[in-house]
């Protein structure tokens, strides 16, 4: 892990991972979407509306998964002063927030025909909404500091505090008897979903994860280059000032 605290080494790894992640994302998302939207059977109760699941479930999993990743990266950054971990956490936040938003949006689109309402204040929905706000607060905290090192540490503390919410979201449908259906994918007795729907769903989940990885690599790379160019400009300005002082 410490090997990759060096941005140059990390960039090398990132460049190696990027094509694989990008191709995986394109292939799985392509086939998963066509399979899920075009060929998977309609549900016996929900009809074609069930197809929203192929977007909704992966988005929800990623909204939480990205946050867990962010919290782990933040802990790594706080404990070992791992610079790249900070950048990973920072780069993850907007992606996770968008996944969260997609999850809320598709859930709402599905809820209208199925539950008869765009929104209900049940535990699952509310806690995902809270997660969305935590993402926003996290991003705002990054913006608030001029000193990037300080911003990184403050944001990391917030990310760790916010991690309390993740188990609450995950288990909200089991702890509280809510309108949102309980988990059908990862259960003690194995998936309770038919294989004709399970396979495209799994493809979509892999696709979302690979897409996240692709975007993450791009974002972290951009951030490293941004910091380097800022550093170079600062040094140039210093040299300029020193030269003028000498004259």
């Amino acid at each position, binding site marked *: 892990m410490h090997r990759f605290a060096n941005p140059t080494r990390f960039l090398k790894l990132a460049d190696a991972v990027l094509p694989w992640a990008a191709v995986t994302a394109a292939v799985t998302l392509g086939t998963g979407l066509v399979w899920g939207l075009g060929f998977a059977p309609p549900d016996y109760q929900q009809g074609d509306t069930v197809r929203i699941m192929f977007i909704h479930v992966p988005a929800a999993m990623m909204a939480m998964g990205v946050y867990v990743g962010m919290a782990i990266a933040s802990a790594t950054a*706080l404990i070992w002063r791992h610079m790249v971990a900070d950048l990973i956490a920072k780069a993850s936040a907007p992606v996770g927030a968008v996944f969260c938003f997609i999850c809320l949006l598709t859930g709402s689109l599905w809820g209208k025909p199925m539950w008869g309402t765009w929104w209900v204040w049940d535990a699952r929905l*509310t806690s995902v909404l*809270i997660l969305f*706000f*935590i993402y*926003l*607060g996290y991003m*705002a*905290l990054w913006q*608030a*500091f001029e000193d990037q090192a*300080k911003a990184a*540490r*403050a944001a990391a*503390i*917030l990310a*760790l*505090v*916010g991690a*309390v*919410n993740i188990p*609450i979201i995950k288990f909200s449908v089991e702890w509280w008897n809510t309108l949102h259906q309980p988990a059908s994918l990862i259960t003690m007795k194995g998936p309770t979903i038919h294989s004709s729907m399970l396979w495209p769903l799994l493809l979509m989940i892999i696709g979302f994860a690979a897409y996240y990885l692709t975007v993450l690599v791009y974002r972290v790379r951009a951030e490293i280059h941004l910091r380097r160019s800022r550093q170079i400009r600062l040094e140039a300005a210093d040299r300029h000032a020193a030269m003028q002082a000498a004259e």
Partner: protein
Amino acid sequence: MVAVFLSVMRRDLLLARRQGGASLLAIAFFVLVVSLFPLGVGPAPETLERIAAGVIWVAALLSVLISLDRLFQADLEDGSLDQLALLPVPLPVVVLGKVAAHWLTTGLPVILTAPLLGLLMQLQPDGYLTMLLAMALGTPILSLIGAVGAALTVGVRRGGVLLTLIATPFYIPVLIFGVGAVEASVTGFPPDAHLLLLAAMLCGALVMAPIAAAAALKLALD
């Protein structure tokens, strides 16, 4: 450690008393927010009765929230935060002392005002005791979580607004169970489950919030 905790708390209480008005301001804000609702939704008793618990809780939450941005700010500005950090005790103890003082100057007055507002909002008689209990458990959580937000945003531009954005999401569970407890007893169910969950949250926040806030404060002192 207990001595330091007590003296930090006493210091903040003394400051609050000498400067005056902190508690009064919190109470005034609390009453004002609640009194906006009958004007907004209409004074029909059955409507007010229905929304009483929620409105009182939301107002209490907001009055704690608006008083938080000065929690560490003044100490940072006059340098006493540096001195407090140099004390030979862990910083979380100092944070806990300050939080306790904050709760005594805002949370407690809010709790004591709440029954009066319950009267104004036509709260059912069964709800009062539960509301007091729920608030006694809930408002310290608000102060504790708020301390983390205040510590993270101390010395930041537009820190107050940011504090609101950061702390509010974490206030939602307190609001849900606080209102849930009152609603349960008003509708004739035992409120125990909600109160126990609030108590559990309080225990968790008591342990974790001072540590997180202290970590954030160290950052501001660098």
